[in-house]
């Protein structure tokens, strides 16, 4: 059974929207990081989908690249979150407003 491209793209859109709303509404930095990962994966899915649709492997190569970068990003992001937690004893993003003053 061939799943039509519209269905794949609907999943991509849903994943991206969930990630975006997560970053925009949740105050917990860990959940925000996870939401960012969701958005990255939505992008990956889109790359792979279009790769198949065009019959061109290049998109899948880029998807691997994004996974590698996302791994690095997650490492740096988590390190930042830990540093922030040590400093503020909290992982809530609205605590991080000192630079305003």
């Amino acid at each position, binding site marked *: 059974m061939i799943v039509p491209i519209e269905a794949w793209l609907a999943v991509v859109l849903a994943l991206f929207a969930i990630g*975006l709303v997560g970053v*925009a509404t949740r105050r917990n930095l860990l959940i925000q990081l996870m939401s960012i990962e969701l958005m990255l994966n939505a992008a990956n899915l889109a790359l792979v989908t279009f790769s198949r649709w065009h019959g061109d492997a290049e998109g899948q190569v880029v998807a691997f690249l994004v996974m590698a970068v996302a791994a690095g990003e997650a490492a740096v992001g988590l390190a930042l979150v830990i540093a922030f937690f040590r400093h503020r004893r909290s992982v809530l*993003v609205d605590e991080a*407003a000192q*630079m*305003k003053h």
Partner: protein
Amino acid sequence: MITPALATRLLPFIVLLPLFGAVVNGLFGARLSRRAVGLLGTATIFTSFALSILAVLGVYGLAHAGAEGTPRLVFTAWSWIASPNLSVDVAFLLDPLSSVMLLIVTGVSAFIHLYSIGYMAHDRSPARYFAYLNLFVFAMLLLILGESLPLLFVGWEGVGLCSYLLIGFWFEDMDKAIAGKKAFLVNRIGDFGFIIGLFLLLYFTGGKLGFPFLEAWARDGGLDPLHGVWITVITLTLFVGATGKSAQIPLYVWLPDAMAGPTPVSALIHAATMVTAGVYMIARLNFLFVAAPVTMAVIAGIGALTALFAASIGLVQNDIKKVLAYSTVSQLGYMFLGVGVGAFGAGVFHLMTHAFFKACLFLGAGSVIHAMSGEQDIRKMGGLASRLPITHATFLVSCLAIAGIPIFSGFFSKDEILFMAFGNTGLFAPWLGKLYFALGLGGALMTAFYMFRLYFLTFKGESRVPETVHPHESPFSMTIPLMVLAFLATVGGFLGLPGELSVLHPWLAPVFEAAEKVVVVSTDHAVEHGLMGVSVLVALLGILIARSLYVGGNQDLPARLAADLKGLYALLVDKWRVDELYFAVVIRPFMALAGFLHRVVDVIVIDLLGVNGAGAVVVGLGRTLRFLQTGQTQQYLAGILVGLVVLGALVFG
């Protein structure tokens, strides 16, 4: 014998020696002794004078070598401005005219520097004084020897600057500082005219302004496209410059105030040299001026009017230097009358004799002031002849010279000018020459009167010197220059004897020949001798009136006249209230305009609306937009999203 090539090479040294003196005295003078400062300042000028004599001998040699045209030495130092539309060299030109000026300026300067050593012996800052004075001589030499109009203008501005510096030499005294400022500002008005004329000329000549070039250009018909109107405009604007520098109506008002400076400065700058720059400039550009008959008539008219007008003020002044100042304005008027009627040689001749006798008079006045411990009011003098024998003798000789008594120098030069005015029928209207002559003769009568009024009140009669003052003759450094200048004031006139006997006129002839041919003068020796008799009688009359009123039997008459003609007397004492008129007509409206610009344009428009307004807008915007920066990244993200949606709607919608 001085070869022309050697003489040419002397020119830069003549100019630069005074500059050297000025720099050394200006930079290191404070560390030198008083004696060294004076010696250095004087020695540079004397050396310059000696070199000048050698250089002029070079011109003399050239003139007698039988070469064609004007004997000229030109030293080109470097190219100052080189472009297709304007090319000016820094070059010095020595021809018969600048030779005469060169000898007058360096010679008189040398003796006035010598005099200054004695006069400024007790001053607090002699180094500054000698630095300024040397700088002045440098600028004046630049003016005289400049080969082109722009270089002449550099010297012209330079002497103006030095004049300002020296008038305000004692700047702690507010009045003296103001006098310097006034001189500078009035001169600037004239210089503005000068520079307009210079640029107009530049436009028509295609960017070349060297005097030899201009002369050839004018001779070869370069003036033809100027159609009489432009040449009149050019020469008139140049003449405006001359009225500023040479203190003629309407810009003469600064010169009497310039007496605030030290007396040797008055003698050098404001009598013998700088103020004659306007006459020199017109003589230098004679080939342009004769092409503009209207300008010539205006120059002669202004000169004659100034001669009479300034003399009338001189009649009633009581400050010894003020009398001499108005006398200088008046004598400069005669020079302009001379060049205005086309008698360039006579104008330069009078310039020379005036430099001698007026410098001597000023230095004599300085000697009197020195002896009187700074008193300048002639009502507090009298009977000084026996106390100051040398000053008295030299002063008397110079008074005779300026009054126009035969054998003394002023007689020959003033007479020649008056005769040329009388005989000139080629002016605007034929009778104009006669009118100018009458004005000049009236001025001559007043000159003889006020000079001898000054002489009698100062040196003769009973002493009115206050008990506390003990007049004494001045030191040799002051009396030697007096004697030298008095000697020159006596014999200087023989250089320009009338007719075939003259030495000066054939010498200047190559420069003025062409121009003097253009001007119509009906020469008649019987008339000349008759006029000579008239002017001698007039001079004697003036002297006799002064004698009768101030040492003779009618000593109560001046006071009675002053009482009877109260209005006129007050008007004369107030110098015809010209200063007041200028204040009301020019200065007050100008100040009102400046006040308006200050209060409205500057304070409100520029400061309040412009500078502070722009600042206030930025500060206000910042204060408002500050609230957008909450520090909450999620709000920023919301902003980004809204923006993205709006952008998307705009692009794809």
